[in-house]
């Protein structure tokens, strides 16, 4: 085993998790509160500030009014609150469930190419040649956290939430998995880095005009790509339990669903797990449909450090757009009914995704036979 490889991989993992992912999760919560406040014509968090910050002339007040310190206060509160364990729960699973919710969301990031090169290191933690299958495998493990939370709580509302989430996540995983097959038919590879490189040259799948050289083919395949993207987007909302599909925790029916019995940091882990999986879903959408780290004009893998950093910046920028979309939709749309959700998944999306695969394959066959 190459020592260099071990060192750089560890470094990448630590940087991605502690410098990027965890702060992003914390500030996604803040963004959620600020955007919801904006949509509902409120102010949002604008009071928290550590003691000495307000002494700084203009900047201090400014940071306070944007609630920049709110996530720290929230985190501290979550740690210091009483961690109450009801006496009727199944202890082992009750402890295991929050961890199982948080981990898969982080593991999926491993195969995402979040930049091209930095120095001579590829900016992806694990450049697997079955990248996307790995992602789906890990995402499918995410359901255990919620199911076990529902089971461990040993009371009726969490249990109903757990059961709902099982059915919902399995249903939408199928639609989600089938929706991305056209992408792989077109690119002919399961490796996410290769998919991004191809999009950089021949146009993003969802926006074919963002290309180095315009090709007829990417325009002909545009409708298929858009259908794919639409199904993937909606399934991502269902997979992350976000409104309009947050049936596992719909508070008007189930109190808070699977996390009703949880308090303190265990509840916070569920809460952060939701945001972490939103981040990984956004990363997936950017990688699969919106050209990853590439922009027209910045399409070749970087050879200098500045270009490398720029690529990482582009990737994060695109990802933030999807995060805002996730948050914005939550405060705009009402919740679906459970049967509507199932109906949409099985009777609309699965057939549509299947037809989309067929059409894409046919178009590719005709184009390639010329």
């Amino acid at each position: 085993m190459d020592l260099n490889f071990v060192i750089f991989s560890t470094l990448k993992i630590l940087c991605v998790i502690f410098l990027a992912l965890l702060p992003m999760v914390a500030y996604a919560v803040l963004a959620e509160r600020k955007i919801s406040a904006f949509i509902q014509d409120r102010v949002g968090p604008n009071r928290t500030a550590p003691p000495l910050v307000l002494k700084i002339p203009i900047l201090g007040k400014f940071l306070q009014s944007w609630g920049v310190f709110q996530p720290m206060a929230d985190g501290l509160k979550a740690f210091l609150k009483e961690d109450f364990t009801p006496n009727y729960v199944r202890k082992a699973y009750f402890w295991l469930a929050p961890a199982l919710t948080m981990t898969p969301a982080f593991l999926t990031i491993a195969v995402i190419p979040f930049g091209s090169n930095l120095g001579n290191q590829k900016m992806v933690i694990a450049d697997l040649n079955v990248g996307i299958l790995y992602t789906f495998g890990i995402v499918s493990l995410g359901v255990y956290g919620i199911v076990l939370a529902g089971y461990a709580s040993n009371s009726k509302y969490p249990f109903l939430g757990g059961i709902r989430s099982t059915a919902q996540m399995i249903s939408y995983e199928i639609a989600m998995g089938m929706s991305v097959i056209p992408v792989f038919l077109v690119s002919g590879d399961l490796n996410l880095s290769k998919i991004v490189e191809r999009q950089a040259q021949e146009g993003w799948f969802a926006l074919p005009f963002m290309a180095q050289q315009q090709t007829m083919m990417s325009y002909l395949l545009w409708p298929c790509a858009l259908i794919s993207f639409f199904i993937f987007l909606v399934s991502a909302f269902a997979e992350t339990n976000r409104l309009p599909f947050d049936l596992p925790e719909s508070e008007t029916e189930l109190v808070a669903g699977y996390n009703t019995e949880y308090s303190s940091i265990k509840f916070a882990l569920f809460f952060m797990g939701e945001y972490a999986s939103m981040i990984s879903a956004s990363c997936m959408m950017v990688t699969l449909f919106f050209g990853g780290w590439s922009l027209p004009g910045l399409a070749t893998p970087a050879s200098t450090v500045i270009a490398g950093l720029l690529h990482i910046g582009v990737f994060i920028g695109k990802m933030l757009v999807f995060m805002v979309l996730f948050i914005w939709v939550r405060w705009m749309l009402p919740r679906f009914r459970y049967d509507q959700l199932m109906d949409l998944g099985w009777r609309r999306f699965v057939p549509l995704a299947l037809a989309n695969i067929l059409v894409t394959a046919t178009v590719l066959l005709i184009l390639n036979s010329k």
Partner: protein
Amino acid sequence: MAAQDYLFYIFAALTLLCGFLVVVNPFSRNPVTSAMFLVLTIVSMAGLFVLLHAFFLAAVQILVYAGAVMVLFLFVIMLLDLKEEERRKIRFFGLITGLISVMAVLGVVLKTYLVDSKLNANLQLPTIEGGTAALGRILFKNYLLPFEILSLLLLVAMVGVILLSKKDLK
């Protein structure tokens, strides 16, 4: 020993240990615990597949078995009333059939170890990396008929399930 060897022993031990705990767990007779250990067994087997460079198989193993099949198992276990199952004692018939199948597996392992290992002692490591394309080519060229028959079988099972789950047939 290389890192791969250590990983092999870790994953093999995990597979065996978790597999053991699925059926004979001294601490709990809760079916959910068994199911969760089965998930762990499946995941550690996926680790073994990775060490054999069968990345596709490993990913599909986790995706299909750990991610979908076992979740449905849990779903069913959780919906059933399991008090009776928890109390059920080990039965003689089950013990005998279990022993026989364990003996059979042991026989195969011993035969591989004692006889087959002498036939071709220097087997080469697989050279295929990942092998999605290679696997597809083999499936759709050499084994097309069995593959299609299998998919037909699955279709029949699916139609059967839908038929059974319909309450009123028109």
